[in-house]
Structure formats: C-alpha cells, structure tokens
C-alpha cells in the first residue's frame, strides 16, 4: 500500500476521477469532428489518388512533408528536457518531465503518420521491410523513427510506473472497474521495495542516455533525406545540425504551451512555477540565438556563391514569392527573442514612462506595421507591386527589415505589460516560435521543389485535402494529449516527492561565510 501526500492527491489524482466536465466533452467533440473530416479526406485520397492534393511535377513533395518535419521536430521536446536534464541532474525538471515525454510520443505518432499519408501506395508499406534497401535515407528514417518511438514510449512509461501504483492504491470508492484494472495491470505489480527502486533508477538512467543519440539521429536523418539529393538549396552539409537545433527549438516552444495548458487546467501553479519558466526560458533564448546563427550560415554561402540554380531559391525567399513566409518567420523568431530577453531586464516604471514605453507608441507602431505589411504582401495577392518601387529587390528587402524594426517599436510599447505577465508572454513567444518553425520547414521545402534545375518553375497551393489533413493532425495531437492527462497524472508524483525531500535536506546544509583574507584586504576588497 503506497501512500501519497494529501495535497498531491488532491491536485494530481482526484482530477483524474472527477466526472467529465462540459468543456472537456465539448472540445473533445470538436476535435473528433475535425479528425473525422480529415480521415474522410484521406480515404478519398487513397481511392482517387494523390491528384487530390496540390502537388504535381516538379512539386513532388509538399505540405505533408512540411508537416512531417514539423511534427517530428516538436517531438524533440521530450528528449531534451527529460533526458538531458535528468542526466545532468537539474532539479527543476521534476514537474515538467511528464508533459515533455507525452509530447514526444504523441507528436511522433502524428509525425510518422504524415509520411504514410504522403505515400502513393500505402498498401505496399510492408515492402519497406521486405525489400528495404539500407542505402536509402528513407529506410534510415524508418529505423530511427521506429526506434525513437519505442524508446520514447518506454521512457514515458518507466517513470509512470510508480505513479500508477500510487493511483492503484489510492483509488476512490466508486471508480469504474475498467480503470481499476487499467492501473493494476499497467503498474506491473509495483510495490515500492528497495530492489524495485534500484532497478527503476537504473532503467531510467540507461534510457535517458540511450534516447539522446537516437533523438539526434532522427532529425539528422530527416534533414539528410533532403540533403542527400542534388536539389539546389538542400544539398548542404549544415542541414543535420540545423534541423536538430530547430527541432529542439520548436520542441521547447511546444512544451511551454503544453505545460502552461496543464498548469491552467489542473491549477498546478505551485509546482510549475517561475523557476521552470525562467530556466527553460534561458534554454529557449539560447536555441533562438543558435537558430539565427544557423539560418544565417545556411543562406550566406548561397548568397555569396550566387550559383545559377541556388541563387533563385534564395532570391524568391528574400524578395520573391516566398518573401512573406520568409520574413514572417524571421519576425516571429525575432519577436520571440525580444519577449524572452528584454522585458525581464527592464525596470518597473510605475509613473513616468518614457514615450517609447507608452501604449500609444505601441498602437502607432502597430498601425505602421499593418500598412507596411499590406504593402509588402500585396504583390502576392494582386499579382503586382502596389508601389512600383517596392518591386525592387533591394527596396523590398529593406522594407521587410524596416517592418521588423517597427514591430520592435510595438513591443517596446507593450513591454511593461509583458513584464507584468511573464507566463502569458512566454506562451506568446512559444506560439510565435512554433509558427515560425512551421514556416521554416515550408521555406526550406517548397522553394526548392518549385525551383528545380531543369523543369520550369512552378507554384504550389495546398488543396483542401492537404489543409484538412493538417488540421486533423493537429486536432489528433491535442486530443491524445487531453485523453492522456485525463487518465494519468500530469506531474510525476514520486519525482516531485523525491525532489521535496532533496530540497528539505539541502536546507539543513549550512554554508559558512568566506573568511576575510589578507589578499582581499590588501586590494581594498571587503
């Protein structure tokens, strides 16, 4: 019989057995409807053929592959936070590991589904095993993604086991029989003996180390699927590390959103606190900087080399048809960087705010941004630049950079609000990063397939089928997340308890003050 702290029980176990509330049923219903519609569109695609998408020659790969790379990228949240922080013994990880690991599993399921949806002959899926050629990056991908999925399910389950036993031993009276069975079976007869704990710790420690290289391999291989071809813009050595860094970056963004949702729904403000947001935020800022560095490095070689097949791809991103997606991506990342870095450094200004920190400066900037954005996006909508001068490559690039600067003006105006609401502003930054990373995948894949070497340039517009399936995939991710946290505790109960014991012990340790030394005195230091 395992006991649990009454506060933890009330916060983490009791909500699992509360009757389904209206919001849950309503949102689950909406999500199910979206998934159903997506499934219908997919079945139609299987019977009619991939012609129902917006693809054609030379756009042989499109939004499904964009989503594939994006979702698998999101799945890197779990490994990073959980495994790396566990290996390095970062104490603040404890309340967020469960959420992180859950994202990994669900994003991975949704991500690998994208590649199946993209296949022309899903009925021949088994051929990849029967006739698989190890030389093909797609087979590397199948192996590493399968390994990662199995690994991350194990890695989610291992720390869940003691929690399941705790729930099993603390079930309310009127619980349905199937749930009693669920926890009894899944807890695998855990009784909390010393031997069991030693084994569990060993297994978790092994899995934590094992899953890091697997995770790195997964996104490297996805990038190599692109980089092993001769296509301009893809045939690059930087792709492996660039994709891994981007994956971790978007993963942290998704984790921030998910953990804030869990915190809000279950009222876990006490556990998922400022410390978690601050520390993970530091990691987020670092990844943001790394992302900018890689993006710059990726494009610099193309820009200076100006090779005939590569340069057009950079040109369409900087001032051509892909300029809106490219510059919006840059804006998203820059704004996220600002939100995470600047407001916490500002002094709290109560009475006399400088002009740039006043709301009216924000409103003015927002209007300027809207006008400028309309001017810059217009050529893509009406087919011609509104002002003749903005059709010029140099002018349009400068205007986009100007746009980002004015966005910063807006941010200065709302800085005080951002400072006052750190959690909300972190979620805003995370959402921007997640959107920005999706756009990044788009900007890597679509310009290259639409600008091949020996085929006339093409355009690509996603069809209703592709959009429906993307929405359904997102809905599937959210629904799996909701159901999982309706059945299992959102925070690892035993790890939290372990953490509080460690914290308690640390309080007992007294660190003596440093004694004044001669050297310090001689130099006038106290």
């Amino acid at each position, binding site marked *: 019989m395992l006991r649990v702290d009454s506060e933890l029980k009330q916060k983490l176990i009791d909500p699992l057995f509360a009757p389904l509330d209206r919001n849950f049923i309503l949102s689950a219903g909406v999500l199910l409807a979206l998934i159903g519609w997506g499934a219908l569109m997919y079945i139609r695609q299987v019977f*009619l*053929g*991939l*012609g129902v998408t*917006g*693809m*054609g*020659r*030379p*756009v*042989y*790969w499109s939004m499904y592959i964009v989503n594939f790379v994006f979702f698998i990228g999101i799945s890197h949240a779990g490994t990073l936070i959980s495994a790396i922080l566990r290996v390095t013994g970062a104490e603040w990880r404890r309340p967020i590991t469960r959420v992180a690991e859950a994202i990994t599993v669900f994003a991975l399921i949704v991500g690998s589904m994208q*590649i199946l949806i*993209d*296949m*022309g*002959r899903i009925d*021949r*899926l088994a*051929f*990849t095993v029967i*006739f*698989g*050629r190890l*030389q*093909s*990056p*797609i*087979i590397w991908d*199948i192996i590493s993604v399968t390994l990662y999925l199995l690994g991350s399910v194990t890695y989610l389950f291992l720390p869940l086991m003691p929690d399941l036993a705790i729930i099993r031993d603390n079930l309310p009276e009127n619980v349905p029989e199937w749930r009693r069975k669920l926890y009894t079976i899944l807890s695998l007869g855990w009784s909390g003996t010393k031997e069991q704990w030693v084994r569990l710790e060993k297994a978790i420690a092994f899995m934590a180390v094992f899953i890091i290289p697997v995770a790195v391999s997964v996104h490297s291989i996805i990038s190599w*699927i692109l980089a*092993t*071809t*001769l*296509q301009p813009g893809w045939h690059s050595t930087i792709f492996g590390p660039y994709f891994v860094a981007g994956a971790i970056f978007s993963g942290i963004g998704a984790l921030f959103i998910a953990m804030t949702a869990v915190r809000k729904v279950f009222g876990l403000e006490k556990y998922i606190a400022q410390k978690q947001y601050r520390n993970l935020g530091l990691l987020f800022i670092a990844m943001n900087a790394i992302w900018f560095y890689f993006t710059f490095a990726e494009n610099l070689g193309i820009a200076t080399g100006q090779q*005939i097949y590569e340069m*057009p791809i950079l040109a369409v991103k900087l001032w051509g048809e892909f300029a809106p997606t490219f510059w919006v991506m840059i804006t998203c990342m820059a704004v996220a960087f600002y939100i995470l870095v600047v407001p916490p450094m500002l002094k709290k200004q109560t009475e006399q705010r400088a002009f740039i920190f006043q709301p009216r400066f924000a409103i003015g900037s927002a209007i300027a941004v809207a006008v400028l954005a309309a001017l810059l996006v217009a050529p893509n909508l009406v087919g011609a630049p509104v002002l003749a001068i903005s059709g010029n490559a140099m002018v349009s690039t400068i205007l986009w950079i100007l746009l980002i600067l004015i966005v910063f003006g807006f941010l200065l105006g709302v800085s005080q609000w951002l400072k006052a609401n750190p959690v909300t502003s972190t979620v805003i930054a995370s959402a921007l990063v997640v959107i920005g990373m999706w756009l990044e995948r788009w900007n890597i894949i679509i310009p290259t*397939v639409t*600008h*091949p*070497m*020996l*085929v*006339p*340039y*093409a355009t690509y517009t996603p069809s209703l089928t592709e959009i429906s399936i993307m929405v359904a995939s997102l809905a599937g991710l959210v629904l799996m997340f909701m159901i999982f946290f309706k059945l299992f505790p959102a925070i690892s109960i035993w790890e939290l308890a372990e953490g509080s014991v460690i914290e308690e012990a640390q309080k007992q340790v007294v660190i003596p003050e440093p004694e004044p030394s001669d050297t310090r005195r001689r130099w006038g230091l106290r």
Partner: protein
Amino acid sequence: MPKWSMVIDLDKCVACQGCSIACRFENNTPVVGPEQAELGRAVLWNDVFPMPVNPTEETGEYPNVKSQYMTRPCMHCENAPCIKVCPVGATFINEEGIVEQNYARCIGCRFCTVGCPYGVRYFNWFEPQWETPLAEHLNPDRVEGKGVLEGPAVRPLGVVEKCTYCIHRLKKAHAQAEAEGRDFRADEYVPACVQTCTGKARFFGDLDDPNSTVSQLSMNPRSFRLLEDAGTHPKTVYLREG
C-alpha cells in the same frame, strides 16, 4: 554485354516533338487534359522544351534572345541519383545500363522524383485514363514477371514511371535472337523515339563498342551531357548546336 546509349544531335533536331508522340503511343503514357497539365500532371517520358528552362537575364529578350530547343528522354545515368535514394529497389540499373522502373514494387514515396535533377520521372497522380479511340489502341506489349511490371504495361495508381529506352523492344529483340539460335547484335534494337525522329537527330547503340556510332559521336568535340558537373554520368549524350 552492350551498354546502351543515345546521342541527340541538336543541330539536326527540328523540335517537331515526334519523339514525344512516338514515345506516348509506344509506352502508353496517360493523357491528362489541359487542366491537369496546368497542375504539372502531364506525363512526357520524352519531353521537348526550350533551354534555358527558366529564363534569366543572360537569356535576353526578344528579338535579341539566346534560346534553343532541347529534347530530353531519361539520361540513364551510370551514377543515378534516383537509384541511390529508392527505399525498396523499385528503380535499378540493369546489366545493359538501362535504368528500369518496376511498377509492381514502387511504393509511391516520390523520393526518386525529387532526387532526379533532370525531372525525367513522373508520378501517377490519378488512375491513368484514355478516351475511347485511344483506349482501344494501347500498346499490348508488357514486360512482366514475378513481382515485376515494367515497360509499356498500363501503370497502376500511385507509382512512378519513366523512360526505359523502350525496354520491351530490347527484350523482344533478345527473344528473337534466342529463338533463331544466334547471338544478339547491338544494331537489332532502337527505341521508338529514335526510329521516328524526323530530322534523324537521334542515334542509338552500344557505348562499350568503340566503333559504334554513339561511341564515335560521344567523342565528338560538340558532345556534352546535361548537368555534366553533377557527377551523374548520363548515357544520353547531346551534340551542341552550331
């Protein structure tokens, strides 16, 4: 074993697109109609298009323009990027140097279509269709075996297809030589596009035989290969115009 190769003399090519039409009827490539063609679903194993494909500043503007017509079957690369990336071995190079495509094996992942820098590979976005008079006159030749479906056999939905240097003609020529109990000669077979070429601009033969027309022509100072610097070593060779 011959190593099949095609030489296309751009000086003689009149861009009549006869090769494209001959190929279409020989290999049963589906007809898609203008709407689908707009979306890039047209299937032309043998395409004729202006070079450079995508005009740049150097191309110039009418009337001071530098342009030429290009006719393009599969390059049948010795070091084919499409073969390297196929996850199931549905595309492969046979001992006679022809890059083949097995429709019964292809899983439709389209990695090869993305991997091919020449854009010679096509995908069956829909079930192939022909209007009535055409549907009654499909080429009945098939290359079929255990788990193998190639050549002009009507392709199923969702697989990739490409120029095979008319592999069924080669197989037939081999079969005939065998039936007559004699050795196969390299001049016994040409693809449909070579046979039909109006300007007699196309030559076909064995690149391993130093005395064959294609060997001689591929040594011509005018000879070049498409995207030569990509390291794919194409066996379709061009003779420069002028």
